[in-house]
């Protein structure tokens, strides 16, 4: 009984995929780096391909390898960082805020 290796095809890492991910991460890769990353990422995915070959039908998916859950903090204010100290470490503080270059997109 071969498990799911046939059903799930591991996505292939191409130079194009690496270039897209690099762009999303704002990484500027040279052609040589792009080739190297493509090879290395392919190797990593091949390893997950090995895991896919195992019969894991009896193993529940886990979000974490740790055997703990529900680590809470009570809703109590604790003093944080001093603004002046933080801003003194910023390249361009202004009016109590961080001055940054404009962005060309927006999110919320």
């Amino acid at each position, binding site marked *: 009984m071969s498990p799911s290796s046939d059903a799930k095809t591991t996505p292939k890492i191409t130079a194009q995929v690496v270039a897209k*991910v690099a762009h999303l991460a704002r990484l500027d890769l040279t052609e040589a780096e792009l080739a190297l990353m493509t090879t290395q990422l392919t190797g990593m995915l091949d390893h997950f391909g090995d895991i896919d070959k195992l019969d894991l039908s009896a193993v529940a998916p886990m979000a*974490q390898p740790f055997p703990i859950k529900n680590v809470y903090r009570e*809703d109590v*204010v*604790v003093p944080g*960082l001093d603004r002046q100290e933080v801003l003194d470490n910023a390249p361009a503080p202004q009016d109590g805020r961080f001055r940054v270059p404009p*962005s060309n997109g*927006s*999110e919320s």
Partner: protein
Amino acid sequence: MSNASSAPSHATVLPNGWEMVIGLEVHVELDTKTKLFSASPNHFGDEPNTNIDPVTLGLPGALPVINRRAVELAIRLGLALNCTVQASTFHRKNYFYQDLAKAYQITQYDQPINIDGFMMLPGDVRIGIERAHLEEDTGKSTHFGGTSGRIHGSDYSLVDFNRAGVPLVEIVSRPDIRNADQARQYVSELRSILLAVGASDAKMEEGSMRCDVNVSVRKAGEPFGTRCEIKNVNSIRAVGKAIDYEARRQVDVLESGGTIRQETRHWDDAEGRTHTLRVKEDADDYRYFLEPDLVLLDPGTEWVESIRASLPMLPAARRARLSQLTGADKESEAVYVIVERGQDDFVQLVADAGGEPARALVYVQQAFSEAGANPVVPAKDLAALTLLERDAKVTATQAKTILAEIVANGGGDAVAIAAAKGFEALDTSAVEAMVDAAIAAQPDAWAKYCAGEEKAMGALVGAIMKSSQGKADGKVVTALLQKKRG
């Protein structure tokens, strides 16, 4: 289940045959003392960057720990929206923006805490709730320079991280909303529920409740069209206006042979129009992955059930109760307003003090502004007034005057005030004599009224009210005129 037909006022917004499909994503800030993953204050309006800590600023090595109260409030909201509460996980949503110090937002992705709920709107319209998940808010950037104060063409931005990490719940409706009226009702009811369960102060003007609106159009019965997401919709009124504008725009594009691009659009309230903000990124461009710094969140049946047991009566149930007490329609404005103001318990008190519930409802709606949400008048004083009016000892107009005096003085004896003002409703025979006199004095008006011209009644009623010096009951006068016409 097209609901468009139940809202005739909106049938005219789109040409015949077109239908709107609307889904809402509403972000609400939870009313906690601290942030979702750190112990800095969650407080609106403080000096910039005074509520910050290593987690908020995404400093290296800082680790998030979840706020128990935020989880509890999220569950309260989920239960109030009829959701299933389940074990959940957190993901990182990766993107670059100035107000996101870590370059990722911690949010819930494929295992949100609340799923599969619903909300009922007037007319027994059921709007599905797909999910209501926990996530952290971003900081706030203000853009300077350039021409418009908007991000495009600005020279620089200033960032305040006080809001970064504030706990949010994002409530995602199913695309079950069919017109702008329903969308407004949905937001308004959601706001009432949030206030009732104490999850959020839900102030749209302060941004603690924010709406993104997904709108598409289709010919009735056809598959969903391509949708656009509208941001910057900052009031319930704007929700309706933005939807009507955007749906009309899409129909115009499609009818002239164009196609709709999936994109994010910005609502400009001053101009009353939407315009393109950016073409929508694919979901996987955010490269969601499990947040390795947080463990599984599994509230468990016992905690969830104890939260369920602690929920207050929700607005819909309170409206039903008030409707039953007073006989007013549960979807009437009076019932909505009184429950929204939280004055339904006071109406009950007036009834308990022997007052007539229907009149108590009217008095409370008239006499107490939204600001004075908690009536400070003894319920028995209003109860006494309802009886005076019910027994026709005073007219409705006189009752209103007495009511104003009772409220102004924080209480008072209705009977004594009526006597002091010389208020008395005239008995029917006296009113009848005045009616006869008015008919004799204005034979033309009477003839028109008898010929079926209802407006002609006004002149007669006016003359009678004048000769009675306001002591005749308008309802009695009207009834007498109708009776005499036969």
